[in-house]
């Protein structure tokens, strides 16, 4: 029998019991829908995480100063100076000793209150070098970034992060204006584009540079020295940190290159900071790999859930088809008398099951396309439906139809024609 006719006949007998057919496939519909939705949510989360990591730069390696754990019996209450973290001499050592590096850019962070007239904003004053713009992947919104000359002249100039510029100047152009950061005055030479935008991510991504006031590192050093005053739980303490961050950009984003640079940096830090644990190395590329790995585990988990839900759906279909076979015993007998071989009966019932599950699969795909949208609208979660999800879900549902249709179809075909004809 021709496939088209087979499908048409199957459709006819399913249409005869529309409600029952619909209820039968609900398991498959929801199974497929949830598979697609969960994959879409997982993919969206992964994309967002990867975008955040990518923002750090795939060829970058980031050394950050971290406050070492408090020594036992710390002299609380007493004003003291805690010195830790990256040193200017580390910077020089890295520049001298590490090969395959394009840029090595230091950064020093000092919390400040930035003022323009009566407007005040809590910002971070970041002392850095001109290469920071490129290495951190920042874009200018107006004016220019810091230059070598700014540093050499200890110029009192600054570049504002997008959020700082907005809060201090609203929609006025800040370039050329003066701001006060702490007790010092700087002239604004440029503003940065907001970091959060353009990545499709949620708010807060890359907020660090949005809330920054960039100044030449030598200027910051000259004006504030190395001490930073910190208020911790009511008591005042001082910390001495020369540099908060050193961003090392490898000559390429190739994994072996980044790995070699990472190894060299780790060796250097071990040598120079011994057991102080006051420097942490972050390799975005490694994070990316970890993110992929955890995504893989997540995907396996989802696949299990999907398999279970489709199994349940398949059992539902099989159950109904078995009942259908009993209900249509007479018809089977008549068809056998009219010359249907066993394979014709198998084909007929299999066609109905496959049509059911494929129809349910299609419905599930439709809903599976819709639900992630709803999730994005209502919960603000990023979702991403890849075409292969649809193919996968649809393929599995068709497979379920075949697997769970075979037994009822075989039962139908094995009926004795004489007995079947006598069935009331």
């Amino acid at each position, binding site marked *: 029998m*021709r496939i088209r006719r087979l499908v048409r006949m199957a459709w006819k007998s399913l249409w005869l019991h529309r409600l029952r057919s619909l209820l039968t496939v609900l398991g498959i519909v929801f199974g497929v829908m949830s598979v697609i939705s969960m994959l879409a949510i997982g993919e969206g989360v992964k994309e967002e995480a990867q975008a955040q990591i990518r923002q750090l730069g795939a060829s970058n390696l980031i050394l950050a100063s971290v406050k070492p754990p408090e020594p036992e019996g710390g002299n609380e209450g007493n004003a003291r100076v805690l010195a830790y973290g990256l040193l200017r001499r580390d910077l020089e050592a890295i520049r001298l000793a590490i090969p395959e590096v394009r840029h090595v850019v230091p950064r020093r962070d000092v919390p400040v209150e930035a003022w323009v007239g009566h407007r005040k904003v809590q910002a971070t004053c970041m002392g850095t070098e001109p290469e920071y713009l490129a290495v951190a992947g920042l874009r200018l919104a107006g004016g220019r970034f810091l230059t070598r000359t700014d540093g050499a002249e200890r110029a009192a100039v600054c570049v504002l992060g997008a959020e700082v510029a907005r809060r201090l100047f609203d929609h006025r152009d800040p370039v050329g204006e003066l701001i006060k950061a702490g007790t010092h005055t700087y002239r604004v030479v440029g503003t940065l584009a907001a970091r959060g935008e353009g990545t499709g991510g949620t708010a807060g991504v890359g907020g660090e540079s949005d809330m920054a006031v960039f100044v030449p590192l030598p200027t910051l050093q000259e004006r504030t020295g190395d001490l930073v005053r910190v208020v911790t739980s009511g008591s005042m303490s001082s910390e001495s940190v020369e540099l908060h961050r050193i961003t090392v950009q490898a000559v390429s984003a190739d994994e072996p290159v980044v790995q070699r640079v990472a190894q060299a940096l780790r060796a250097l830090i071990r040598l120079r900071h011994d057991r102080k644990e006051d420097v942490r190395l972050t390799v975005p590329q490694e994070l990316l790999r970890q993110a992929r790995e955890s995504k893989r585990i997540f995907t396996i988990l989802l696949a299990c859930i999907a398999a279970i839900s489709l199994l349940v759906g398949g059992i539902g279909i099989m159950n109904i088809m078995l009942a259908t076979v009993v209900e249509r015993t007479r*018809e089977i007998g*008549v*068809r056998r*008398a*009219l*010359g*249907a071989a*066993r394979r014709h009966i198998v084909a007929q019932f299999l066609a109905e099951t496959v049509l059911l599950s494929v129809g349910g699969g299609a419905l599930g795909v439709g809903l599976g396309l819709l639900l992630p949208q709803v999730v994005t609208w209502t919960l603000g979660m990023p979702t991403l439906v890849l075409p292969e999800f649809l193919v996968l879900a649809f393929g599995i549902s068709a497979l379920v139809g075949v697997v769970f249709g075979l037994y009822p179809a075989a039962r139908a075909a094995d009926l004795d024609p004489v007995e079947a*004809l006598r069935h009331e």
Partner: protein
Amino acid sequence: MTAIVRLEGATRLYRMGEHTVRALDGVDLEVPEGQYLAVMGPSGSGKSTLLNLLGCLDRPTTGRYWLAGRDVSRLDDAALSRERNRRLGFVFQSYNLIPHLTVLENIEVPLDYAGVAPRTARERSTGLARRMGLGERTDHRPGQLSGGQQQRVAIGRALANDPVVLLADEPTGNLDSATGLEILDVLDGLCAAGRTLIVVTHDPKVATRAHRTIHMLDGRIDREERRA
């Protein structure tokens, strides 16, 4: 005349628990081409078993069956299905039309299994529906037809693959006498056109139209009458 149907010592045993029931007990039967044969007898006499054997729905436990010259007594299920499809036509007491198919689609079921192309099948089913006097009702479903009309559809369906034998099981059993006569007229017409008919019936009116009537009793042919 050649025998279209030839049974030789056909026996059919059924196991019922510890007992063995001899539903058919060494039946010899020859039906020549074009003959109209009526099979009568009380219930349990083996009529239905005989019909099932002749209709290739069942196989004799012992003995042999030639259908149109071919020994079909030991064929497998697929081959028997093919015999039913190509060389036999069935008419049942309760019509046994498929309720969700239209008149034409019902007639096309055997054509489908024979692998006839849809367009050819449609031409043939339309022709058969017209011949059975159903011309206007080809798109109706069985539920929308009277009993007589349904039986006409069933006869059309039985003729779809131009069978060598038409087997009917109480074809008038569910019909009022007037309609029953109409159906018998249709069968007469087929007989006149040279079709071999075997009709199982309780109805003596059928027997009056047949060329030959056999009476079954206890799984054997008890006696036989021929119409002059």
